């Protein structure tokens, strides 16, 4: 929250004081917009805390098929982390590659078409991705997952237990999540790559660097913090994505690291969507409590990312 406030605080300091009415009005409007966001965040937090509080300590029946809050949410947390990790691991190399191609390699006309197509991908609703992923993509990914299980089954991520019979695994969900977070990561990294000072790029080339070396020594260091922010935004979306996971993943309450098995626990967000409708009031509190955990976890991830980015920038400045 402090991070959201700081640019707003820093802004007026750099501009000379002004007494014009138009300026004051506009400043007030921007301030209102900024604080509205804060207000909404606080309101969401308060709602989750009040409505979900009793979910942390309810009667054991509420946590069926488990008996306590921790044992109920643990499988969900593991799945949430696994699915998001797969998504980020798959999406980031693609996104950076696409962004580099668009900003530094492709001829301008192709670049603009490609950029437009990637942005279009962001407009596809997650329900559609869910349908496509579950009914179509899963079937095509299934043989590959069996292969993974056969050859890398000794790793905890691809075994033990039989491989998925229809591809509706955490692996497929992770791949679809990767497709969904690709546009946002690509768009942001592209913007930053384009902003690399041309002088630095030309200097690198003039010193005899190849194009790849130029990118490595001029573009990447300049863009690093922006790339981390982009990945974090993508991760945030993956952590919270609901419908696609709910529609693709075959669920079971058992904790498992195996991402190509018959079934995995749902992610926190998908679990809420799946169970909220027919839930009793006690279970609704429980689901809201899991939502609170996700809310706080997302915050934690963002803070950590900002801290890492900040540290890198400080290092670079030195």
């Amino acid at each position, binding site marked *: 929250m402090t991070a959201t406030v700081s640019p707003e605080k820093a802004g007026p300091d750099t501009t000379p004081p002004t007494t014009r009415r138009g300026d004051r009005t506009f400043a007030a409007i921007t301030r209102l917009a900024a604080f509205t966001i804060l207000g909404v965040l606080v309101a969401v937090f308060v709602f989750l805390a009040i409505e979900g509080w009793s979910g942390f300590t309810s009667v054991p029946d509420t946590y*069926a098929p488990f008996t306590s809050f921790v044992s109920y949410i643990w499988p969900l947390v593991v799945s949430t982390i696994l699915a998001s990790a797969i998504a980020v691991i798959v999406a980031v190399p693609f996104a950076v590659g696409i962004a580099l191609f668009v900003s530094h390699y492709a001829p301008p006309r192709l670049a603009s078409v490609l950029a437009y197509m990637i942005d279009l991908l962001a407009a596809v609703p997650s329900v559609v991705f869910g349908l496509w992923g579950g009914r179509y993509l899963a079937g095509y990914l299934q043989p590959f997952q069996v292969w993974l299980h056969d050859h890398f089954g000794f790793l905890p991520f691809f075994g033990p237990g*039989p491989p998925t*019979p229809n591809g509706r695994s955490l692996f497929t969900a992770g791949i679809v999540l990767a497709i969904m977070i690709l546009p946002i990561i690509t768009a942001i990294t592209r913007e930053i790559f384009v902003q690399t000072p041309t002088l630095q790029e030309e200097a690198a080339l003039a010193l005899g660097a190849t194009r790849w070396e130029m990118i490595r020594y001029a573009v990447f260091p300049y863009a690093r913090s922006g790339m981390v922010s982009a990945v974090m935004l993508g991760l945030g979306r993956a952590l919270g994505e609901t419908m696609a996971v709910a529609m693709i993943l*075959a669920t*079971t309450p058992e904790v498992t690291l195996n991402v190509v098995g018959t079934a995995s626990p749902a992610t926190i967000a998908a679990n809420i969507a799946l169970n909220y*409708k*027919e*839930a009793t009031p006690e279970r609704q509190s429980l689901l809201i409590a899991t939502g609170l955990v996700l809310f706080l976890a997302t915050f934690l991830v963002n803070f950590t990312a900002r801290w890492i980015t900040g540290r890198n920038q400080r290092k670079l400045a030195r």
Partner: protein
Amino acid sequence: MKSSSLRRTALPAVAILTVGLTLAACGDNSSSGSSTSGGGTLNGGGATSQANAQTVWRADYQKANGGTINYEEVGSGTGVTNFTSKAYSFAGTDAFLTDEQMTAAAKSCASDVVEVPAYVSPIAVAFNLPGVKSLNLDSQTIADIFNGKVTTWNDQEIASQNSGVKLPSTAITTVHRSDESGTTFNFTEYLNKTSPSAWPYPANTVWPAKGGQGADGTSGVIGVLSDTEGAIGYADDSAVTAAGDLGVVSIKVGSSYNPPSATGAAQVLEASPPAPNQPATSMATQIDRTATAKGDYPLMLASYLLACQKYSDSGTADMVKGYLTYVVSPAGQQAAAKTAGSAPLTPALSQKATSIVSQIAAS
């Protein structure tokens, strides 16, 4: 320069907003015009299982009597909560009210609570095995399959009940609901009541066993079944029939094997004993899962409609009474059977429900 670019973006935005608002206003006018011409508006909601049937009932009722009836598919739990908080004038629920819920609802109504069965439907156990369209299984075997004890289709336990059927060695994938559902409650209750040793888990809206694949909603289960060879799952019989290409299990009832049937489900409901501690206005029934009469199909779901016996507003009372009378009438039940594939109430149940509903009045 700056102001002109602002104008360039602001003007279309304003234009779009104006057009949008005008259209919205038009929409408002026309819809409010049509609703005032008929009767009032009735808000209800609850169990998703009734959704298809409710659509038919609402359309029929509104066509005959005017007015607007809303049914939100929010699930049984929320339906009961909203009914008790008076947000809904009526509600649908897959499980009859518990004693506490009944007390709370009666207090909110300031009268007895009307609870009549509206939607009865057999639940089919369906499977995907090319070339096999029907299998005989007793509840013990079904429990063993869903428990992960029987893992291949040519297992002796299945084969011994299906002599003459060529069973492949395909691995069995069990499919259950990943969302909380009345279908799961009724399926697990059936297994628990008929084979308590093989299925020790008590009835629950959450799938209790380990293993197998969870899928979202009835359509999700049907989707996985259709996509996966060797899969077996449970779903509303109408959805299984609609899917077309799935095999259906005949469950063992007494000494015979019965396929899912609407009449079989309805007759089990009629023969089942009433639930304990119910007011005279409630038809809540403890479904007899171990029924063995000829043609019985005890693996079924009975979904109820809730209403107050007394409403403070006479318009609401008349509308609830009219709507529920139609729903439990033979005509209403037939309409639902035709489009939603439900089991029509037996004449005796329909009459009893009608007489209870007829007592709804303004206080």
